[in-house]
């Protein structure tokens, strides 16, 4: 007795988006895409390495040149800051509370990147006692995104485990891989906003070795406020 498949099921399978052929086709497409992404990632990473190197060398050159001439080289003001919230949520007045919310610093030891301009500097001024911030270098940005980088996908916090994830969300901004993301953040490019909002706020660990005193500003041998390039060492302790 031959097993007869009901017609409705036959039709359903034919129409189905989960049928074997459709799945196979989809998979092939996906594999092809992944290969493309990885090759792009390779080339762009190479390009960016050169770029960062050139930048550093250029900086040194200009400084030396100025020294020779007997003048000073004024470095461009930093465009990027990394803020870490170092105080808890209890007893925060409304204005700083709102600003911390806007910056996605909703819990202690959370960190975000921020583009520095007049408006954001004013915001930072209000929340100085609750955060410490500074100018991260490439390696810090890289470490944060690689090790602690989580993406906001479907209103969920998902660890970035492949370039495909980045491609899906940020392809339209020409960001397809990790290095692209790092570059966009570090150099505060055209699509910094989208790259930054793709990233969930970083959840860091309390610093190894601890803080001195959060109540004082960094300038006064405390911890809060602007600590410029020393943010890099702090992040290393907190990452």
């Amino acid at each position, binding site marked *: 007795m031959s097993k007869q498949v009901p017609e*409705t099921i036959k039709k359903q399978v034919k129409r189905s988006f989960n049928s074997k052929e459709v799945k196979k086709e989809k998979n092939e497409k996906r594999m092809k895409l992944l290969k493309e992404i990885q090759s792009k*990632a390779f080339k762009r990473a190479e390009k960016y*390495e050169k770029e960062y190197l050139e930048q550093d060398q250029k900086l040194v050159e200009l400084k030396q040149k100025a020294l020779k001439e007997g003048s000073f080289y004024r470095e461009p003001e930093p465009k990027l800051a990394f803020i870490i919230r170092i105080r808890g949520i209890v007893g925060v007045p409304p204005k700083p509370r709102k600003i911390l919310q806007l910056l996605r610093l909703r819990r202690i030891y959370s960190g975000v990147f921020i583009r520095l301009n007049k408006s954001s500097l004013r915001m930072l001024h209000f929340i100085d006692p609750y955060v410490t911030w500074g100018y991260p270098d490439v390696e810090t940005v890289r470490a944060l995104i*690689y*090790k602690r980088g989580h993406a906001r996908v479907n209103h969920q916090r998902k*660890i970035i485990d492949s370039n495909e994830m980045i491609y899906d969300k940020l392809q339209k901004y020409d960001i397809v891989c990790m290095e692209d993301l790092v570059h966009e953040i570090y150099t505060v490019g055209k699509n910094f906003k989208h790259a930054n909002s793709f990233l969930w706020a970083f959840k860091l660990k309390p610093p190894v070795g601890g803080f001195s005193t959060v109540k004082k500003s960094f300038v006064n041998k405390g911890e809060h406020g602007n600590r410029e390039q020393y943010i890099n060492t702090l992040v290393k302790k907190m990452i």
Partner: protein
Amino acid sequence: MTTQQLRPIVSVFPIKGKVKTIKQVPLPSVFSAPIRPDVVRFVHTNMAKNNRQAHAVSTTAGEQTSATSWGTGRAVARIPRVKGSGTGRSGQAAFGNMCRGGRMYAPKKVWRKWHRKINTNQKRYAVCSAIAATAVTPLVMSRGHRVNKLPELPLVVSDQLQSLTKTRQAVKFLKFIGAYRDVEKVIRTKKTRVGQGKYRNRRHVLRKGPMVVYARNLGIKKAFRNIPGVETASVYTLNLLKLAPGSQMGRFIIWTESAFKLLEDIYGSWEKPSKFKSGFYLPRPVMVNTDVERIIKSDQVQTVLRNRRPRSRKYGKKIQRADPYEDMSVMVKLNPYYKTKLQKQKELDEKNKKERKEIVDKSRKEYEDWLYFSEEEEEEEEEGSDEDREIEVLSDEN
């Protein structure tokens, strides 16, 4: 109209001779009316109340005393007590529903609403359902009728049946057509009624047997009158209480040919109204095609549906991933250039190291040369006179 298995043609059987089709008639539309047990139950329960006779308790029952309460302070309950003395009745409680010989709580009145009004259309709906159910063999069987030996259901028989006059003929017919088993069941299960009805002129209880429906009574009524369980009815006045006894649909009915044909006129169809019930069309079912699954799976529906939203199972589960700075494979997946970068770094470091080594070696050599050379100079200096040395000392540009 419905997806019921329709029997558009029904055979008409003779009343004696051989059980074979003498004619074929179309099935009237009533038999395709929706079978609604809920409607039938509702109508039946209300219709059954309509043949009730009023009963009540006497208006004076329990009130025929002049009892008065003794009041408080006498160590007895405050219920009214019978006045007087010299008899056991005196001092006994009276009037209350809890008292012996007292009036009942809320004495029954004759003006209780005994009968129920039912909407005419509902009544007709129920009758149509009940008639439709008589053609459905499983329903008739589940009602308890013995219909295994019947040639067909609905059972339609020639009009000669209407002219029968003798009970013997009627019984012979029932045996001939195979309906007598149902009658036998009735006879077999005749019992004395359980309960007090037995001495209230309702002594025996009988099952319901076949019902014979005729168009004209030419003696049929009397012929079937004495057969236990069998009822006759005119097709013009079909009673729901008989079609669905106990609101259980599926009475075994034997139709005469003209009665059967008249059903089309009496109950009409969905296109043509009834000729006898003004403005009445057969009830429509709520769903014509009840196979919902099939409708959903049909091409007409499926081709119009939008695509199922793809569940991005990629990100469904919580993704665990090692630290890229500890696990090289994870790092390379995220940054395919990393290995090359390390290699280049290594090469650069080596190159720098080499260069540095060269510079260091060179300068060390120079220093050693200078040392060696200066040692020679010192030796030469020591060989000269003191005077010369003095002059040399003075001539130094310090």
